[in-house]
């Protein structure tokens, strides 16, 4: 295959202006990738600062207020600026049209608008950070968020605007999957990644408006004293928590469903087998998207919520584990007796499956009300959701980055180095977060800058793990940046994958396909033809 510069989307206009005004879903995907990676760096620096502060009891590098602001900004950045847009907006934009044989997404101009909405929202949030930042935690719980003197307002407005970007992206994907599938590509032939993005889009579209409204109400409460959530005016702070978690619990699935899609693709590609049970993965995706809306109250067990409510929410939360287990069994069944190729995406996939399983099982324990009260607001909870959000989502994000890097940029990266970095990341992750489970179980509360000396050894272990993680990310950033220019030319299909996205050139031409592809079978039909594995 010709070198990547030949006639790809990357070489179709080389000016900055041609990128800023592009309607090409691939360029928009790459822009989202760059933006989300930048905010991953910002959020990561905040996390590192938190871990350094917790290295010793008492003050290490910052006071309590600075610490509170720091974990708030870490949460806000990681949740809304990195994790929610990362896989859907970056990889989803790039891959969904390629996977369904379309030229672009349904509404390319709206797609570009979603980039600018994201940039606008992110700028307002950044401005809030420079104003000193909020100290409420990423959850903005009332009445603290309506009374604190820190810069809550710009952060609220920023997140509100980013919500529009999310909605626009979700709307676009739903319309795209419904109307732009290539002839012959029926629903039950869609790649599993497309299904995952579709399920995610449904959640984004249904849940994000409620977040917008609740943020608006908090802002109004701060500005004009609207009094909806203020007990002094007859309001109910729990109502805020209901509305907030009606969005923010499904938001967990906005973060993790696309990861599951990535894993479904990678498992098939690196074991050279069809998905063990395509339909079950599809149905469990939709099942998670649906049941995820009925579990939000498990964040409120210790809030004074009705006991009836807690029981119902706890039981519903356990249902999610069934759907997740179906997926994990399907992936394991796919790997079983497959022709395994140990490449970095597969290493991340295995890490993902372990972390999702471990974090998910602990989640079932947490949804038991009586046990939850012991762990509520401790470091155990922090470790639990980091197992899902970092352990699962970031692993899948890195897996996707490695799996589709040749697709996006037409270059290979040094495989051995990538494998070592993947192992380092997984090891660093375990070292960071397993001590936090132990800390939480011993009674270390979350969101505290200080702690009694007997917790120190575990905190030091956690900080050491965080440093390992940071080191691993630096290595990845270095070799990927190097590979962009100096990596070996990948060819069209370096992994020998049978996924639909590999049917066009790598990197793809602006119009994606020279010939409308045909889809006689579903994706990853390895039994049909033997795809030779790239040396």
């Amino acid at each position: 295959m010709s070198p990547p510069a030949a006639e790809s989307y990357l070489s179709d206009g080389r000016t900055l202006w041609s990128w800023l005004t592009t309607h090409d879903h691939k360029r928009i995907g790459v822009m989202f990738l760059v933006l989300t990676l930048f905010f991953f760096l910002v959020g990561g620096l905040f996390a590192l600062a938190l871990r350094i502060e917790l290295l010793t009891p008492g003050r290490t590098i910052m006071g309590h207020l600075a610490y509170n602001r720091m974990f708030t900004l870490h949460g806000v950045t990681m949740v809304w600026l990195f994790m929610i847009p990362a896989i859907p907006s970056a990889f989803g934009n790039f891959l969904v049209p390629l996977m369904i044989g379309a030229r672009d997404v349904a509404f390319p101009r709206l797609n570009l608008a979603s980039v600018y909405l994201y940039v606008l929202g992110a700028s307002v949030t950044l401005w809030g950070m420079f104003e000193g930042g909020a100290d409420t935690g990423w959850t903005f719980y009332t009445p603290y968020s309506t009374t604190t003197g820190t810069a809550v307002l710009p952060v609220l407005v920023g997140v509100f605007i980013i919500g529009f970007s999310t909605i626009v992206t979700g709307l676009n994907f739903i319309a795209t999957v419904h109307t732009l599938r290539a002839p012959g590509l029926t629903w039950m032939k869609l790649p599993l990644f497309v299904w995952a993005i579709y399920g995610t889009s449904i959640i984004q579209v249904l849940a994000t408006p409620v977040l917008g409204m609740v943020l608006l109400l908090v802002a109004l409460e701060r500005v004009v004293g609207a009094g909806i959530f203020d007990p002094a005016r007859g309001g109910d702070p729990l109502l805020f928590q209901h509305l907030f978690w009606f969005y923010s619990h499904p938001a967990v699935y906005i973060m993790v469903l696309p990861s599951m899609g990535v894993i479904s693709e990678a498992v098939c590609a690196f074991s050279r087998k069809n998905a063990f049970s395509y339909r079950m993965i599809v149905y469990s995706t939709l099942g998670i998207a649906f049941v995820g809306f009925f579990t939000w109250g498990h964040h409120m067990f210790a809030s004074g919520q009705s006991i009836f409510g807690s029981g119902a929410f706890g039981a519903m939360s356990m249902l999610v584990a069934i759907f997740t287990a179906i997926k994990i069994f399907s992936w394991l069944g796919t790997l079983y007796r497959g022709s395994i190729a140990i490449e970095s995406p597969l290493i991340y996939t295995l890490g993902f499956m372990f972390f999702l399983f471990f974090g998910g099982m602990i989640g079932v324990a947490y949804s038991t009300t009586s046990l939850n009260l012991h762990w509520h607001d401790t470091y155990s909870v922090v470790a639990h959701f980091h197992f899902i959000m970092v352990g699962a989502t970031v692993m899948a994000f890195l897996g996707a980055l490695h799996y589709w890097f040749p697709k996006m940029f037409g270059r290979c990266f040094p495989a051995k180095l990538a494998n070592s970095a993947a192992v380092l990341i997984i090891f660093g992750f375990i070292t960071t977060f397993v001590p936090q489970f132990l800390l939480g179980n011993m009674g270390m509360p979350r969101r505290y800058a200080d702690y009694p000396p007997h917790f120190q050894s575990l905190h030091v272990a956690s900080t050491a793990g965080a440093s390992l993680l940071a080191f691993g990310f630096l290595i990845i950033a270095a070799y990927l940046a190097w590979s962009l220019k100096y990596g070996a030319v990948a060819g069209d299909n370096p992994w020998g994958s049978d996924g639909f996205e590999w049917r066009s050139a790598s990197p793809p031409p602006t119009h994606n396909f020279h010939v409308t592809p045909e889809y006689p079978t579903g994706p990853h039909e390895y039994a049909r033809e033997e795809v030779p594995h790239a040396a």
Partner: protein
Amino acid sequence: MPPEAVTEHWGSEDARKQAAYLGMWVFIATEVLLFAGLFTAYGVYRSVYPEAFRAAQLTMEVGLGTLNTFLLVSSSILVALAVHAVRGNRPGLGGALLLAAALLGIVFLGVKGVEYSHHVREGGLPGDAYRFAEVPRVGASLFFTLYYLLTGLHALHVTVGVSVLTVLGVRSASGAFGPSYATPVELGGMYWHLVDVIWLFVYPILYLS
């Protein structure tokens, strides 16, 4: 090189139309869920403060609220007729009907303004500013907060809708749409109907019962 893969964004005219309708419906779903937060707050506080809510409701001007309901329903009928006219290749008539519907929307906003001014004079203001002596503060101040939020957010949608109808009306009158291309009128009409339907739910819970 088969041209359909390279040049056509939409596989077919049907796909274009369906994407437009589906996209609009998804947008409508987001609007419905945007209001859901306020309806939920209303439901929760009404169940907590039933007497205060009833007392505050009795001070609402049902006449003006009902007038507004009739205005919006009539404008919806006009918009439905306009879509029919544009589809039937009479864009001039369609434009006139759209502009008439927009005019009803403006009257709606005027009536709403009169109502607001009455409330302000009586002191029925949201949150801290609540000064209405007739109804006890706890609970009733929440009713008025929600009243302003629901009607205010709705009025914002009416304003957007009026602008959309005006632009569509002028463009339709100048012959921009017809049977082969009625999508913008259809989508704008759907938006206006959405605004109407939301009011149909706001009206009974705030004014009637």
